[in-house]
């Protein structure tokens, strides 16, 4: 019998994603903005439609049949996420609205419980604003300090500094698994090991990591792992916070409301158990069901196939970009995902983006919500082509033709 996951039929895969067959300005869409958000397979769209049309009802509250079905689907979604990242228990999976909300939750609740005046939080220079600002806000509140692991010229972290950056005052380390602006893969395992030598917990921002390779939170031994549904082929407005039970048990909730309580009186409220303690109010349970379906889709496609296809696209794009004159790539290392962040001669990225857009090519231009790393390279922004497994070599050829067109118009 043929192993289903070994078959990778690109035409079939592309036909699963309705938006990929769109035309823009009369041109075939080339969607290279997957770092911002990914398209959704019809399986996910159907799961959402089914939830709203066949069994929609609020979870955890009802005595009635539909509420039971919704609750059951929601909790099954939690189990699906647990198994996808290989967490030990469902209680360690908290649904949030996305990576940003997950980091804010940890920054607040961990900060309330563990951070005092003079303490330090360690992040890196290539973080997305979502993994900078929540820590900054917490440091301001607690009179603590933010420390930063610097970045080398090739976009990799300068880990030689790690030993003196992790001090007895460091209370938590928060780093990206993959840089959203450059595509560079961060050696999070090594950072976690170093931090754990001093008993310091590590949060891994997996927003750009979860969709590009196997994630095993137990193997990584990270203390927190966060990601967004919409960047991993799931719906918008749903995200995940994985946290080791020992931390989540100790951390106070950051939002109060329904469902997160055990007993409420005006004198005192006791909180519900994990993970509900962190899920106040009606959560986006339809989003969670959609996300679980997206992860099922990935498993059916095969993460190994995805990794192989994206590696092939990366190599091909690198070759074509290198052969095109006048391009400067930021994040010049082999240890990258299929993101190419670049500038063309002295051409402003926004001008390039406008012209590429009119050729049907969707890229992101600007600072990619990571101004410090742009400042590190002395630039305001780049053009970012972020590819994923449903993209093709032909689309890369169209991008290269687009770059030539930009050059002919702007130089």
């Amino acid at each position, binding site marked *: 019998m043929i192993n289903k996951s070994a078959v990778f039929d690109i035409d079939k895969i592309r036909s699963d994603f309705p938006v990929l067959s769109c035309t823009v300005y009369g041109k075939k869409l080339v969607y290279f903005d997957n770092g911002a958000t990914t398209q959704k397979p019809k399986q996910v769209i159907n799961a959402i439609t089914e939830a709203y049309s066949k069994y929609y009802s609020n979870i955890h509250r009802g005595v009635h049949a539909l509420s039971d079905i919704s609750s059951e689907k929601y909790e099954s979604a939690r189990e699906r996420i647990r198994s996808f990242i290989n967490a030990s228990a469902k209680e360690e999976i908290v649904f949030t609205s996305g990576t940003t909300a997950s980091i804010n939750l940890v920054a607040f609740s961990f900060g309330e419980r563990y951070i005092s005046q003079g303490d330090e939080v360690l992040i890196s220079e290539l973080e997305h604003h979502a993994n900078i600002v929540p820590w900054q806000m917490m440091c301001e509140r607690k009179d603590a300090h933010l420390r930063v692991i610097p970045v080398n010229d090739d976009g990799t972290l300068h880990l030689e500094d790690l030993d003196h950056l992790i001090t007895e005052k460091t209370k938590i380390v928060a780093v990206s698994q993959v840089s959203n602006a450059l595509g560079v893969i961060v050696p999070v395992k090594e950072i976690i090991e170093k931090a754990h030598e001093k008993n310091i917990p590590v949060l891994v921002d997996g927003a750009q990591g979860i969709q590009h390779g196997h994630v095993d939170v137990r193997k990584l031994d990270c203390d927190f792992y966060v990601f967004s549904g919409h960047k991993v082929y799931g719906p918008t407005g749903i995200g995940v916070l994985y946290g080791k039970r020992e931390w989540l048990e100790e951390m106070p909730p950051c939002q109060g409301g329904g469902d997160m309580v055990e007993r409420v009186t005006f004198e005192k409220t006791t909180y519900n158990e994990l993970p509900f303690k962190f899920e106040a109010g009606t959560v986006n349970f339809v989003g969670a069901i959609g996300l679980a379906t997206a992860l099922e889709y990935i498993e059916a496609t095969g993460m190994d196939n995805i990794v192989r296809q994206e590696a092939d696209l990366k190599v091909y794009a690198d070759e074509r970009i290198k052969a095109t004159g006048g391009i400067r790539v930021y994040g010049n290392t082999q240890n990258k995902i299929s993101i190419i962040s670049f500038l063309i001669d002295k051409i402003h990225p*926004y001008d390039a983006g406008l*012209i590429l857009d009119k050729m049907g090519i969707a890229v992101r231009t600007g600072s990619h919500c990571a101004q410090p790393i742009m400042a590190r390279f002395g630039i305001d922004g780049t053009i970012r082509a972020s590819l994923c497994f449903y993209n093709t070599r032909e689309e890369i050829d169209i991008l290269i033709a687009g770059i030539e*067109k930009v050059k002919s118009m702007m130089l």
Partner: protein
Amino acid sequence: MSYHDLTVREVQDEIIKEFSLFDDWMDRYDHLIEEGKELPVMDEKFRKSEYLVEGCQSRVWLYPEFTDGKVYFKAESDALIVRGIIALLVKVLSGRTPDEIMDADLYFIEETGLRQNLSPTRSNGLLAMLKQMKLYAIAYKAKKES
């Protein structure tokens, strides 16, 4: 500065006529790049943070002068296509009275297909620049009347 002899509407109609010659977006962008080349380069001394209009995709600087009851604008951008659109806005609104600027209905933006470049979500500084031009007009009018 012959455009100052025309009304706000006449300048816009002129721009719309020029744009109607192009049915392809690349030709329109080529035309905008050319328009941008006609905009005088802004002196470095005006490229200061106090004249910088917010925008995270591209940067736009706007410097106003009020002479003989009219507002004159100098403007600059680091992106060429944005610079072309700036040149059009300056052509339409510079050298006008505060009332003309405040009352100007800028229908050419819609009719040339440039609307999406002035949408709040683009964050390229153009919409902020347009708002700022109108704010300067209001301020100069208030100053004149006081």
